[in-house]
């Protein structure tokens, strides 16, 4: 692709959203025969079901049926890979909030009254809730995952200094505003159609087929949009989809299930919480020669995507730094809590936070600015004068590094140095109010760790009136994917975006798709859609060239017109009609797979990422010593989006990602009681950032470079996940402020809530 695509298209559904006419799953008009489902959840975290009496529920008015594990025709499993996520608990209960039965009723009101009649008798076993308990019982889900290079154990003896420490990193609830939702509509001859709020329609198709013992071609899955997902609808949407499918097949009626907020928070998995222990060796200048980090992860009651998340955590544990001798280890612990799952960054944020902590502590030890330590350890930029090649610990050559240049520019534009000095002067005299500032970098790898997932398909139809229909495997969760892909197709034909119709993701139209995740939605689907459109355009050009006796390359598609030798011959619509009359196929599929990536999971080596995204942020905070209360005063961001396809959308992703990261690191706290009850199961107790929690002064800039060195669509770069980790700058700004309150290193844990900040000063 030579032409550059830049546009400021508004979100494709913006008009529908502002008028309340955008349809989410719960808004789909259903026939009055549609039945509603309410779930019965376990009240204990670990034990056996001794007795289950549901007949009284069935006898209540408006109740059609109550289903349990016995009603599943196929497999009782909703897991993405490992077969260990029961849809309904059978004999055993493994977490508090686990689904045991489902009430199918005429209305939700009926079900809510009837559920009180359910009687379940458990025999309880003490649950394993905390990581400490899990370590003690050694409940490893699999052998530890390791990424290593060089020889940590022997090389650390050659270091001038050695530091050991530990950081506790909290989990995070997704809190997509739209809860999990699914609707199943039975069709003729056992076929079934599922509407679901899911990032992964093909996986829903697989799970539903397995649960109902059907072939994949009996099941179609449609996703128009999600009201937010952030990874929380990658595997977690399987469960509601399976339940509505079972209910619809059993009753022969459409069935709908929408989790209410409390149920959603109790049932679904979250970001993994970690305890990361480190040991680092470095010289008098702060250059690291050996580093060991052991991440202990709370995975919850099943594997879910934890193995891949652990791998990504390990692959980001060196963040932007070249470290010759490393040993990164992840221990995956099973606990009696919801199964933790994908969440924006997919383990990357936890890995990086631990690394940045190491840097911060080295700087404190050497009494140097952490930024100095960061710079001394960065990978070399790709334009480094020595032309030296460096590899990550997992053997990928870092070809596209720009972190030194990017950080230098941000340091300059944000006035970092003078502000830091000023703040330190301020802290010397201010007794109660302390300020802090930090600059942290991000280097994030783009591609799915699992090779197979790096593929995408698209379908493009041009109709005889010149209107265009587009379908692809990616799903829209607010990230603006559809807006971008539509623009790519429109540019290919030289027409306006609003002539291209975007349609709901549908397993009938594009099969065997991957999850929309790993920030790769536009890279993969944009390219597939481009290839589909390009083939049609080539066919049209060949035919028109034949009509006008010129080469097909001389047929230009521009501004809705066909131009040959600088002369407007016809509109795109007329061209479409002519081609149709001339019996030219105006429909095409496109298929794309990311080139040049490979991964040897056994050895933990390869080139798992097509490219890296870089960024950095400077945050300034202020805290009140007496209460631990804090706020973010300002943030300066310089982020690399390559050559942006839609700057407004990319900026929105950066701002939204940053604030979500800020929530994770400063206020969102998940609390489980000893018996495994989630105490923070509603927005009353679980606080996500609100309007006045976001920074007062914002300054977001795109890094001006040459674009992606790899041949992505428009040389753009993925933008979904990387900005999330820019919020680490907030966390280390707290650390800076706290350092003025004590001699020893303030070992701050995340989230840095008021309590955390208050107690860390002592």
């Amino acid at each position, binding site marked *: 692709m030579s032409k550059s695509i830049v546009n400021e298209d508004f979100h494709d559904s913006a*008009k529908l959203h502002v008028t*309340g006419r955008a349809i989410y799953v*719960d808004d789909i*008009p259903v026939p009055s025969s549609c039945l509603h489902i309410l779930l019965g959840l376990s009240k204990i975290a670990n034990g056996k079901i001794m007795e289950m009496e549901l007949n009284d529920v069935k006898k209540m008015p408006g109740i059609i049926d109550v289903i349990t594990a016995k009603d599943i025709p196929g497999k009782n499993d909703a897991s993405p890979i490992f077969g260990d996520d029961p849809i309904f608990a059978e004999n055993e209960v493994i977490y508090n909030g686990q689904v045991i039965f489902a009430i199918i009723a005429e209305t939700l009101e009926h079900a809510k009254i009837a559920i009180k009649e359910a009687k379940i008798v458990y025999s309880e076993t003490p649950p394993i809730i905390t990581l400490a308990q899990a370590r003690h019982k050694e409940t490893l889900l699999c052998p530890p995952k390791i990424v290593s290079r060089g020889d940590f154990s022997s090389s650390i003896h050659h270091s001038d200094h050695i530091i050991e420490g530990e950081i506790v990193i909290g989990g995070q609830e*997704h809190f997509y*505003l739209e809860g999990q939702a699914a609707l199943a509509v039975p069709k003729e001859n056992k076929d079934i159609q599922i509407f679901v709020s899911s990032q992964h329609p093909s996986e829903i198709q697989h799970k539903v087929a397995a649960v109902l013992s059907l072939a994949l071609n009996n099941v179609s899955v449609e996703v128009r949009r999600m009201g937010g997902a952030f990874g929380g609808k990658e595997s977690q949407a399987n469960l509601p989809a399976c339940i509505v499918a079972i209910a619809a097949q059993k009753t022969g009626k459409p069935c709908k299930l929408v989790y209410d907020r409390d149920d959603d928070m109790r049932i679904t998995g979250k970001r993994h919480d970690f305890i990361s222990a480190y040991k680092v060796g470095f010289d008098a200048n702060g250059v690291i020669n050996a580093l060991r980090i052991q991440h202990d992860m709370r995975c919850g009651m099943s594997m879910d995507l934890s193995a891949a998340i652990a791998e990504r955590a390990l692959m980001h544990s060196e963040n932007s730094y070249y470290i010759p001798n490393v040993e990164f280890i992840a221990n995956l612990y099973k606990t009696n809590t919801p199964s933790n799952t994908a969440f924006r960054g997919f383990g990357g944020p936890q890995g990086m936070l631990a690394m940045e902590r190491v840097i911060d502590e080295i700087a404190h030890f050497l009494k140097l600015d952490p930024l100095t330590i960061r710079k001394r350890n960065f990978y070399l930029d790709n334009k480094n004068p020595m032309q030296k090649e460096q590899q990550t610990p997992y053997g990928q050559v870092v070809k596209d590094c720009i972190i030194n240049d990017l950080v230098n520019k941000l340091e300059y534009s944000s006035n970092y140095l003078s502000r830091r000095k000023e703040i330190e002067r301020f802290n010397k005299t201010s007794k109660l109010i302390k300020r802090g500032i930090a600059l942290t970098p991000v280097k994030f790898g783009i591609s799915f760790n699992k090779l197979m997932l790096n593929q995408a398909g698209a379908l493009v139809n041009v109709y005889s009136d010149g209107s265009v229909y587009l379908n692809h495997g990616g799903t829209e969760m607010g990230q603006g994917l559809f807006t971008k892909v539509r623009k790519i197709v429109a540019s290919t034909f030289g027409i306006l975006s609003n002539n291209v119709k975007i349609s709901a993701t549908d397993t009938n139209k594009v099969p065997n798709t991957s999850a929309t995740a790993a920030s790769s939605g536009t890279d993969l689907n944009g390219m597939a859609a481009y290839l589909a459109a390009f083939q049609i355009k080539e066919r049209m050009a060949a035919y028109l060239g034949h009509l006008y006796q010129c080469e097909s390359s001389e047929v230009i598609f521009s501004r809705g017109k066909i131009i040959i030798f600088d002369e407007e011959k016809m509109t795109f619509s007329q061209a479409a009609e002519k081609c149709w009359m001339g019996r030219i196929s105006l429909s095409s599929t496109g298929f794309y797979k990311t080139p040049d990536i490979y991964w040897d999971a056994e050895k933990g080596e390869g080139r798992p990422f097509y490219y890296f995204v870089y960024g950095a942020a400077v945050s300034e905070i202020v805290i009140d010593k007496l209460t631990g209360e804090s706020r973010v005063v300002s943030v300066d961001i310089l982020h690399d989006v390559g050559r942006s396809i839609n700057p407004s959308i990319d900026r929105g992703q950066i701002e*939204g990602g940053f604030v979500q990261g800020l929530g994770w690191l400063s206020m969102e706290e998940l609390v489980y009681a000893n018996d495994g009850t989630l105490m923070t199961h509603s927005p009353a107790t679980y606080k996500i950032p609100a*309007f*006045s929690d976001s920074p007062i002064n914002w300054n977001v800039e795109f890094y001006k470079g040459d674009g992606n060195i790899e041949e992505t669509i428009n040389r753009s770069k993925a933008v979904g996940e990387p900005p999330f980790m820019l919020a680490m700058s907030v966390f280390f700004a707290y650390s800076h402020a706290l350092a003025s309150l004590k001699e020893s290193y303030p070992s701050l844990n995340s989230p840095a809530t008021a309590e955390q900040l208050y107690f860390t000063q002592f």
Partner: protein
Amino acid sequence: MTEVTLTVNGKKYTQNVFDHVLLSDFIREKLKLTGTHIGCDTSQCGACVIHLDGKSIKSCTMLAVQADGCDVLTIEGLADGDVLHPMQRAFHENHGLQCGFCTPGMIMSAIELIKGKPDITEQEIRQGLEGNLCRCTGYQNIVKSIQEAAKNENNLTNR
């Protein structure tokens, strides 16, 4: 069951409802006006904000029977045919949304917040909308949208 009569977006409805049915559910389930969203059901998120007799309220905080005799305006009743309300236009043009789930509630809350305040400050907007959560945008573009709409306050038709 109780009979309630209320005017919604200019249309009069008389319906029988259970006494415990929330106004939000009534609007969505009975009237099929699904632009009013449910994000929490516990008066925390603001996705369900509507106008009741000209004042913005969280419709999940109120029973349908309590709204008997009232005048309700939902997001669907805001635009004049194809012509967007200035607040809707501002959200549309300033990228004030991503997934869009919070948008109807944001717009309904914002309209009341800026009423008669063309010079509303960013600080006032942020404080005034503490009760509306958005998980996607980081709020920046929402603030921008509202500020722009406030500037055009004079043109706001107060329907």
